[in-house]
């Protein structure tokens, strides 16, 4: 495993730290696991969404009469039907109508058709007549900032022009740093608009119960309770009449947060028709009409000393949120707060805006704003290192936060208890053989070494959302079987298995005694669901608390029966026994007593249920107006090395080798942990090499199919196993010392490849993706500028000496 213990300390029991079989395995490999699109109900009707081909248009008229006359069509929901309903958002700015009041991107929902079969509904889409009055469009976020740019959301509260959010992070003496620096280097970076593309498309099945006045929604989501809350707000229903259930979910990656139009349409249609209604989005709809990553333009300027010391950091960020803001503002905020990564920086000043454009909305995608920030920072570091004539690894060594400085607080207030970045660098460089590669690499081969810092589960960003809470209930039935229910919403991470490990260790039972229900609002206690690498930390801690409360109750009764102090009892193998003796009682016997037998209970105790619920709200802060604050409950870091080869005739980049060392905290399940990192890296490789949604001048997406939107297939991704190393740093302030690592793999991957390509061809490609065209263009520019491969960038960084007053010694 290649793990090292930073702070050896025993917590947890036998199962934590072992790779027990995934409890969902048999269901998944036999095809018996039911995803939302696999569910049917008697009398079920099928829905499809009519989507705008226009990117910006006033809707003059929607006429469903022809569609309604077609065979099998049951109903058409039009914008007038929802005009009185409130707007929705995954984030704070309620800017999105359920059906377009005005079209703001091509692919936006305009109407919904319900029919007896999916085929009939699809066939009727073109029969819904929509008259559009075209409006001028704006696709470029910087153009959208102009005074004459077409406006997407005129009159919306808090929106100025097309700017829906400003986020400034300004801490430390940045101006002083820039005055005293030896040199200032600036460069512009651009990131792309990739799509999470989970294999299962969105789907929802709603069943309205007229008698009860209730609705049940089965949906492919990460957040059952937040979806329920949004449904209640939109339709004016109390929360006890709406049940949201998450079946198996086929991948999410941030893509399945919040309420979606098809979910609301399923509910409305079920109510209107008195029968269940199911929507399953097509892959094309996923691309054109669901959220992507937020592209950013980052103008970076770094103040440096000659020896490579970073003194200050300035950035301007223009983030393109597309037609609706979603989680764009929080993506921007978190992106700013991790901008300087695991490095020492006395001051930073980052000024960012979120801008509307006539493109499908961008929102959460694994890594949030961190892959963007990491790409710009790490490539910038390589540019600075080259300018100063310092080896890029050495440049980083001079700037990383050192182990001897821990615990420490960064300029923008991140409280770092553990940060084994030096150890990670050493482990990664050893694993990939950095020195050997540097010495022996052939022309057009290159190596990139990058570092990152990442929130490790649990964070806050705004005072309007200052709960970071989730919950778990554990119930011991009278027969001794255990049931866990929580708002955690697995989409492939293996949550049920991980939670069973945590519970089984506290309660001393076999994993087979425990069943887990994830994400059913009538069974699971309240919580925010799964996102942001939080489940191991937040749900894990809540569950452990619930299990400890349950255990204490059991020990009290068992102590009475065994005539022993509860302190002297231990739970294992389904028994409660007196430590060091053979006196024991079965867990099931104690459970039966508590349910059925008052006479067997300690005096004053009444029979009752054995069910405990606990919550956990992480102890992090909402940063202040300067962007200063400890926004995450804990932090992880990693060092990644990518070794690549560029084909100078095709521009194709091949990945020859990969190594990384990650701080992962206390490991719960080594194999599933590795899987999270492997999968994240693969998505990051896609982000680097080609994934990007492309639009023509009219705002029509040109690559809305898997044929044209190229995700990595098996041959693209190198074997990543032995050289993925884990470092178990144990944060003493954190209850279970687990860290969330769902986003650790993706965050540094594009940066590592970009730096490796820079090393290979001598030109920094500063915009993602690193397409063959850009690579060829870069090689071409180098050859034109310098006939000998000693080379300079065609578009060199702007370097200027500062006013050169020496900085007082620290």
């Amino acid at each position, binding site marked *: 495993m290649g793990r090292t213990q930073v702070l050896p300390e025993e917590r947890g029991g036998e199962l934590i730290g072992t*790779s027990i*079989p*995934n409890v*969902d*395995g*048999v*269901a*998944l*490999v*036999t*095809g*018996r*696991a*039911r*995803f939302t*699109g*696999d569910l049917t109900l008697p009398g079920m009707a099928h829905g499809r969404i009519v989507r705008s081909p226009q990117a910006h248009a006033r809707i003059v008229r929607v006429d469903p009469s022809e569609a309604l006359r077609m065979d099998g069509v049951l109903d058409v929901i039009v914008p007038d039907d929802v005009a009185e309903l409130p707007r929705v958002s995954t984030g704070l700015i309620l800017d999105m109508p359920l059906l377009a009041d005005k079209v703001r991107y091509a692919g936006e929902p305009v109407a919904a058709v319900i029919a007896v079969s999916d085929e009939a509904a699809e066939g009727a889409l073109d029969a819904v007549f929509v008259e559009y009055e075209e409006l001028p469009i704006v696709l470029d976020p910087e153009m959208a900032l102009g005074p004459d740019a077409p406006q997407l959301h005129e009159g919306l509260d808090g929106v100025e022009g097309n700017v829906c959010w400003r986020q400034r992070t300004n801490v430390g003496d940045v101006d002083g740093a820039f005055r005293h620096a030896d040199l200032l280097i600036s460069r512009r970076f651009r990131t792309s608009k990739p799509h*999470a*593309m*989970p*294999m*299962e*498309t969105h789907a929802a099945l709603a069943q309205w119960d007229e008698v009860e006045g209730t609705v049940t929604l089965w949906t492919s989501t990460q957040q059952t309770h937040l979806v329920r809350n949004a449904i209640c707000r939109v339709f004016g229903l109390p929360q006890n009449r709406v049940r949201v259930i998450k079946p*198996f*979910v*086929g*991948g999410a*990656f941030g893509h399945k947060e919040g309420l979606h139009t098809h979910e609301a349409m399923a509910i409305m249609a079920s109510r209107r028709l008195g029968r269940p209604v199911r929507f399953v989005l*097509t*892959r*094309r709809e996923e691309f054109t009409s669901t959220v992507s990553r937020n592209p950013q333009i980052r103008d970076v300027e770094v103040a440096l000393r000659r020896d490579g010391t970073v003194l200050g950091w300035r950035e301007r960020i223009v983030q393109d949120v597309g037609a609706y803001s979603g989680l764009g503002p929080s993506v921007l905020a978190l992106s700013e707060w991790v901008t300087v990564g695991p490095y020492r920086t006395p001051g930073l000043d980052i000024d960012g805006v979120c801008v509307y454009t006539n493109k499908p909305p961008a929102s959460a995608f694994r890594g949030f704003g961190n892959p963007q920030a990491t790409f710009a920072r790490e490539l910038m570091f390589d540019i600075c290192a080259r300018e100063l004539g310092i080896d890029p690894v050495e440049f980083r060594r001079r700037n990383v936060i050192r182990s001897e400085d821990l615990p420490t607080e960064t300029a923008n207030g991140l409280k770092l208890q553990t940060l084994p970045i030096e150890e990670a660098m050493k482990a990664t460089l050893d694993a990939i053989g950095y020195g050997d590669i540097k010495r022996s690499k052939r022309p057009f081969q290159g190596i990139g070494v990058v570092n990152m810092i990442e929130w490790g589960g649990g964070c806050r960003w705004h005072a309007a959302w200052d709960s970071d809470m989730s919950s778990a209930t554990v119930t011991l039935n009278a027969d001794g079987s255990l049931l866990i229910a929580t708002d955690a919403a697995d*989409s*492939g*991470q*293996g949550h049920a298995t991980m939670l069973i490990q945590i519970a089984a260790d506290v309660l001393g039972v076999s994993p087979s005694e425990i069943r887990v229900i994830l994400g059913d609002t009538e069974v699971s206690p309240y919580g925010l669901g799964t996102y942001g690498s939080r489940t191991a930390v937040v749900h894990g801690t809540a569950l452990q608390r619930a299990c400890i409360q349950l255990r204490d109750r059991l020990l009290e009764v068992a102590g009475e029966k065994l005539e022993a102090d509860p302190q002297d009892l231990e739970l294992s193998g389904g028994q409660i026994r007196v430590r060091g003796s053979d006196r024991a009682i079965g867990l099931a016997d104690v459970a039966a007593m508590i349910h059925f037998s008052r006479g067997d209970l300690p005096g004053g105790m009444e029979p009752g249920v054995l069910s405990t619920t606990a919550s956990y709200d992480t102890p992090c802060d909402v940063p202040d107006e300067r962007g200063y604050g400890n926004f995450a409950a804990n932090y992880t870091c990693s060092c990644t090395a990518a070794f690549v080869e560029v084909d100078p005739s095709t521009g194709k980049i091949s990945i020859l080798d990969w190594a990384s060392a990650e701080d992962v905290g206390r490991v719960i399940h080594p*194999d*599933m942990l*590795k*899987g999270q990192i*492997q*999968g*994240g*890296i*693969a*998505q990051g490789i896609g982000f680097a090499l080609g994934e990007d949604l492309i639009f023509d001048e009219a705002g029509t997406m040109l690559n809305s*199919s*898997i*044929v044209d939107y190229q*995700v990595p*297939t*098996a*041959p693209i*991704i190198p*074997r*990543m*196993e032995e050289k993925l190393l884990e470092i178990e740093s144990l944060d003493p302030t954190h209850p279970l010392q687990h860290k969330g690592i769902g986003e650790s*793999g993706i965050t540094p991957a594009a940066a590592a490849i970009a730096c490796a390509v820079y090393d290979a061809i001598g030109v920094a490609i500063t915009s993602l993706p690193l397409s063959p065209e850009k690579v060829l263009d870069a090689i071409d520019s180098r050859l034109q500028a310098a006939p000998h491969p000693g080379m300079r960038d065609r578009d060199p960084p702007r370097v200027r000496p500062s006013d050169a007053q020496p900085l007082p010694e620290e």
Partner: protein
Amino acid sequence: MPEGTIRFTLNGRFVELPVAHHRLLRDFIREELGLTGTKGACEDGMCGSCTVHLDGLAVKSCLLLAVEADGHEITTIEGMARGDELHPIQQAFIDNFGFQCGYCTPGFIMTAAALIWDHPELEGEREIREALVGNICRCTGYTRIVASYVDAARRMRDLDGKDGSDG
């Protein structure tokens, strides 16, 4: 819509059913036959999540019409295990954590099974990755899928050695 009757063997059982001529095999399996282990994730034959066996060959059921199954033998993921006893490939995916969300897994298992039967010589990491190019997984990064494949091929060779069956 023109309709006909198809007769074929599905997971070892004879089936005779009416079907619309334009019905995709994938949709017929999922909706008419209720076997939802065969998934759909694209409309272009690119993702491989709908892979089934037609006379032992891996085919993408979204690229075939149901009528093309007439007279043939179709196996879906539901036909791989014998009762509670998992197929060695299924067990290999469990033991090697060769899945995460599991949505693409039935397709990968069907592709892997046909490959192992037809190309037992495939052993190298690179060759296996090239052979799996028609199936997309968005969760695992493929390393554990390849490990599952290698393990499955070994198990099936061992079985062959024991009883001479095709696994």
